[in-house]
C-alpha cells in the first residue's frame, strides 16, 4: 500500500514538474515577425490570392483579420498560389489566367483538393479574426472570394508570429497536468509531513 502511495505521489510530482515546464514554455512571449495589410475591391464572382502567401512551421502562427461590406469567403489554403493556377491550367488548358479569377474555378479546385483547406469562414457584411496554428511545415495562402454579384470592399490584416510552441495547446496541457499532478502528490506529501512531525 505504501509503495503504491509513493509510486502515485512521485508520478504526481513528475506530472507537476512537466506541467510547470509547459506553463513556462507557454509564458515565453511570441515575436511578431511580419505584417501585411491593405484595402481592396473584389469584383462580382471573383477571387484573389495575392493578399498573403508564406511558409509556416508549427512554431509560427498567422493571425488573420478580414472585414468586408458584403458576403465574402475567406480561405487559408496550405498550398502556394502557383499550385492553384497550375491545377487550373492542367484541367482547363484552353482558358487563360483572367478566366481563372472566376469563383467557379476556385470552387472546383477546392472540391477537388479539400485537404488543402487549412481554415475557411464566410463573412456576411462584417469581420472575422482567427489565429491559425499549423500542425506541420506548410505553405499558407490567404484566398478571398466574392460569391455575390456585387462589388465588395474589403480590408485585411495578416500578422505572422513566431513562438516556441503552440501556446493554446501547451497552456491546455499545463492546466490539466498541474492539478492532476498536485492531486496525485497529496497523499504522499501528507505521509512525508506526518513522518517528519513524528520525528520532531
Amino acid at each position, binding site marked *: 500500500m505504501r509503495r503504491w502511495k509513493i509510486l502515485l505521489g512521485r508520478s504526481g*510530482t*513528475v506530472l507537476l*514538474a512537466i506541467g510547470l*515546464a509547459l506553463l513556462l514554455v507557454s509564458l515565453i512571449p511570441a515575436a511578431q515577425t511580419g505584417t501585411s495589410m491593405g484595402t481592396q475591391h473584389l469584383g462580382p464572382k471573383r477571387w484573389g490570392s495575392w493578399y498573403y502567401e508564406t*511558409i509556416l*512551421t508549427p*512554431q509560427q502562427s498567422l493571425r488573420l483579420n478580414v472585414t468586408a461590406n458584403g458576403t465574402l469567403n475567406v480561405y487559408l489554403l496550405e498550398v502556394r498560389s502557383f499550385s492553384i493556377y497550375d491545377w487550373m491550367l492542367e484541367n482547363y488548358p484552353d482558358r487563360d489566367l483572367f478566366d481563372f479569377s472566376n469563383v467557379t474555378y476556385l470552387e472546383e479546385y477546392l472540391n477537388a483538393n479539400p485537404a488543402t483547406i487549412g481554415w475557411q469562414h464566410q463573412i456576411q457584411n462584417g469581420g472575422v479574426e482567427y489565429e491559425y496554428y499549423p500542425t*506541420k511545415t*506548410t505553405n499558407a495562402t490567404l484566398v478571398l472570394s466574392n460569391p455575390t454579384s456585387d462589388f465588395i470592399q474589403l480590408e485585411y490584416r495578416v500578422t505572422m508570429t513566431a513562438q516556441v510552441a503552440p501556446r493554446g495547446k*501547451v497552456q491546455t496541457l499545463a492546466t490539466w497536468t498541474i492539478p492532476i499532478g498536485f492531486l496525485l502528490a497529496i497523499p504522499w506529501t501528507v505521509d512525508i509531513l506526518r513522518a517528519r512531525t513524528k520525528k520532531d
Partner: protein
Amino acid sequence: MQERKGRPFLEVFASALHEDYRFPILELFAFLYALGTFVFASFVSVSAAGELIAYSLTASLMIFPLFTFIILIFKNVAYGFGSDIEKGIIQTFLSYPLKRRWVLSAKLLSALGVALLLFLSIQISAMYVLAPDVVGPYLGTVILTYVANLSYPLLLSAIILFLTLILRRGSIALVVGIVLYFALGIVSSLASFIAFATQSPLALQVISVFSPNVVLGMYYQVFGVGPGFPSASIWTPSFTEALLYLGASYVIVAAVFATAYIYFSRRFSL
C-alpha cells in the same frame, strides 16, 4: 518458485529506484526534458522531403534533453552503482535469493530503463503536441532517429558500468564517460575533415559504427538535399547501409553489456 524469484527482484529494483531518483531528482530531470524539448525544436524548409523534416525535428528536439539524459544515466550507473559497491550495499543485494545477473538487471532497469522511459515519453508526447502531422506519417523515421542517437549514450553507459565493476568505484568511470562523450564530438569533426580532405568515407564509416546518427544524418541529408550536397560526393549511404551500421553499433553495445554481466556474475568480488 516464480513468485519467490520475482519478489527479491522487485525488492532490489525498488531499492535502486529509491536511491537513483531521490526527490526531487526525477522531477528536476522531467522539468528539464520538457523545457529543453520545446526550446530547442526547429524545422527545416517546406521544400525538404517529409522524412528529412521528421529527422531534423527529432534530432533538434533531442539536443538538450539527450545531454540531460546522459547526465542522469551517468549519475545512476557510475555514482549510484559505484557508491553501492564502495559502501558495501551491494553485498546485501547479493545475499538475496537471486542470481547475480538479476541483481544487475534490476539495478540497470532502474538506472537506464526508468530514465529512458521518462525521456522518450516526454519527447514523443512533445512531438505530438508540436507537429502531429510530422510525427504520424513518419513515425518510422522518428523511431529510427531515436534508436540511432541513443546508441552512443548506451555504449558509454555499458563502458561506465564495466569500469565501475572493475575499479569498484564510480568516480573514475564517470570521468572516463564524460571524456568519451566529449571526445566523440571532436573525433566526429576530425573524421568529417579527414573524409573531405582525403575524399574517402572511411573515417565517417568508422565513426558510424560507434555513433550511427552520423550515417543516418548523411543518409537523410543526401536524401533531402540531393546529390549537390557536398557530403554526397564522399559518401551516399543507402537505407540498408544505414540500418547495418545501426545494427553493428547495437551489437557493440550488447557485447559490452554482456561482458559487464559476465564479469559481475563470475568474477566480481568485494
